[in-house]
């Protein structure tokens, strides 16, 4: 799948700009703060997951009412014209071939993109929240119709927390709160188990792809991913029914404390993904990458997760998702730069940004896009 032509209107620092993209490697070059990342971000938005960088409200150019992204998207034999509109407070509206589509599922079914930028280091180093979001998004990228699982879970969690909060503290809950808590517990376990099962399935699918990429880029070593949940143990099955039972049993143990604290204390909202690795040469022991890996290793690890995501999506969707690498090369040592430049050749459309064009010359770009102050100029490799 690929984006052939992109028109940005009042999008971040772009007033109005038309950009033609190659189906292969597009090198996006320019000085800092000219709009390179914004261009990659716009392509990611076409996938229907909002901005990879934060609240969608910031997508609108200062002083403008709305931001527009128009794109010709090709998947297989089919080319679809996509119009996106972000209006602060109104959310996003999408048209496919001029016809309004409800929600964002149609966008997610049309394209998939993988974004990797400097902030992605937080995927390893940051809070569990980021790793959960990574998994939950991947669930939906693989199976767009699964977006209801997370939505239902979010609603149940909110309702149950509201109930726990409203239950009188100390001397035991009021009768009606206790009576209704039972039904919210049941909903909590059912939807929570569905969400956890979806995550486990995706993590199991992702792990071999990410591990392979880690070995390649690190030149050895081993990467392992495992789901961490206080309410599961080694014997818990990965099917929805086993997970529901495990969640229900764990809930029984913490319910009194939950009523005291007024919040759900266990469940998928607190789970995490453990990223363990051993560097080349230290084959024997796996260490928690969050705590023990060097900054460089953490970056390699995050890159392996994202490239693994790209590989998994390629196999699952039968087509390369669009790869967006934002300012990644400058952070890597020469050996890893060379490896990455090689790895992104021939894996479909990619947009790779860099402030120092020299860093990726060897990648063999099909097109070079120079960005200056929200204006783009395309050129062939070798120009200027």
């Amino acid at each position: 799948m690929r984006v052939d032509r992109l028109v940005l209107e009042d999008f971040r620092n772009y007033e109005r700009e038309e950009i033609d993209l190659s189906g292969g490697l597009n090198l996006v070059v320019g000085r800092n703060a000219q709009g390179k990342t914004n261009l990659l971000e716009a392509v990611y938005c076409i996938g229907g997951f909002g901005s990879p960088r934060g609240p969608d409200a910031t997508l609108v150019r200062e002083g403008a009412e709305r931001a527009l992204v128009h794109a010709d998207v090709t998947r297989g034999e089919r080319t679809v014209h996509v119009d996106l509109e972000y209006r602060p407070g109104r959310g996003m509206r999408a048209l496919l071939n001029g016809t309004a589509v409800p929600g964002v599922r149609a966008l997610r079914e049309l394209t998939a993109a993988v974004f990797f930028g400097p902030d992605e280091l937080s995927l390893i180093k940051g809070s569990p929240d980021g790793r959960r979001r990574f998994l939950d998004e991947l669930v939906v990228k693989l199976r767009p119709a699964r977006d209801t699982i997370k939505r239902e879970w979010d609603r149940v969690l909110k309702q149950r927390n509201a109930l726990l909060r409203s239950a009188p503290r100390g001397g035991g809950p009021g009768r009606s709160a206790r009576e209704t808590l039972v039904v919210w517990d049941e909903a909590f376990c059912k939807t929570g188990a569905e969400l956890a099962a979806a995550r486990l399935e995706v993590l199991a699918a992702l792990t071999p792809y990410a591990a392979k990429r880690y070995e390649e880029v690190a030149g050895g070593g081993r990467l392992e991913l495992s789901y961490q949940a206080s309410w599961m143990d080694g014997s818990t099955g990965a099917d929805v029914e086993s997970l529901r039972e495990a969640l229900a049993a764990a809930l029984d143990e913490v319910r009194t404390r939950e009523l005291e604290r007024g919040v759900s204390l266990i469940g998928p909202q607190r789970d995490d993904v453990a990223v363990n690795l051993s560097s080349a040469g230290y084959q024997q022991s796996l260490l928690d990458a969050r705590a023990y890996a060097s900054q460089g290793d953490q970056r390699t690890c995050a890159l392996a997760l994202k490239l693994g995501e790209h590989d998994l999506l390629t196999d699952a969707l039968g087509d390369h998702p669009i790869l967006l690498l934002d300012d990644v090369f400058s952070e890597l040592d020469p050996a890893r730069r060379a490896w990455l430049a090689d790895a992104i050749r021939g894996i479909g459309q990619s947009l790779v940004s860099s402030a120092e064009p020299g860093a990726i010359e060897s990648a063999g770009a099909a097109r070079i896009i120079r960005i200056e102050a929200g204006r783009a100029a395309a050129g062939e490799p070798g120009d200027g």
Partner: protein
Amino acid sequence: MAMLYAGPIQDLIDELARMPGIGPKSAQRVAFYLLQASTEDAKRLAHAIVEAKDKVRFCERCFNVSDQDLCEYCRSTRRDPTIICVVQDPPDIVAIERTREYQGLYHVLQGALSPIEGIGPEDLRVAELLKRLRTPEDGSPAVAEVIVATNPNIDGDATAMYLARLISPLGVLVTRLASGMPVGGDLEYADEVTLGRAIEGRRRLEG
């Protein structure tokens, strides 16, 4: 929202904006429509609101809207009093009646459980429903089945589950409207939750 118009106009806009489904912009549009309408038209609307408010009340038994003490279904001698269909709001009754498939009575909860909005069982007509089940009206037979027709979403499901736990011990059969594939729909476009429910609630085909 900032005050933009002179007193009475702004008052009207504010009142309209408090209605469900009407935001500030729609409220403004309706307000100016009313101001430009003839005095008779405006008075007729005001009169209709006051009349409805004066004359329409809730049925003493099932809490449907009614212009008498009992609603038309509770008054009717042709309805089956051994079945009660529990719905969230009066418009749900209209939807079910349109099918002409149902001949029993109703009970309107006037909402669904929602801790976020602070709605608990005591805010719904649950106690009144239990009373109907425990002590049938003079001369009417005991209720044999309660059909829970709350909305098929998280809140409606939780409400259904809650009712089932209360009602089953009374020896009354509790059923839930089936959830699943829309008739005339396309399997491949169904979301997984709907499809999952449809598989859960599948029925034997008699060949």
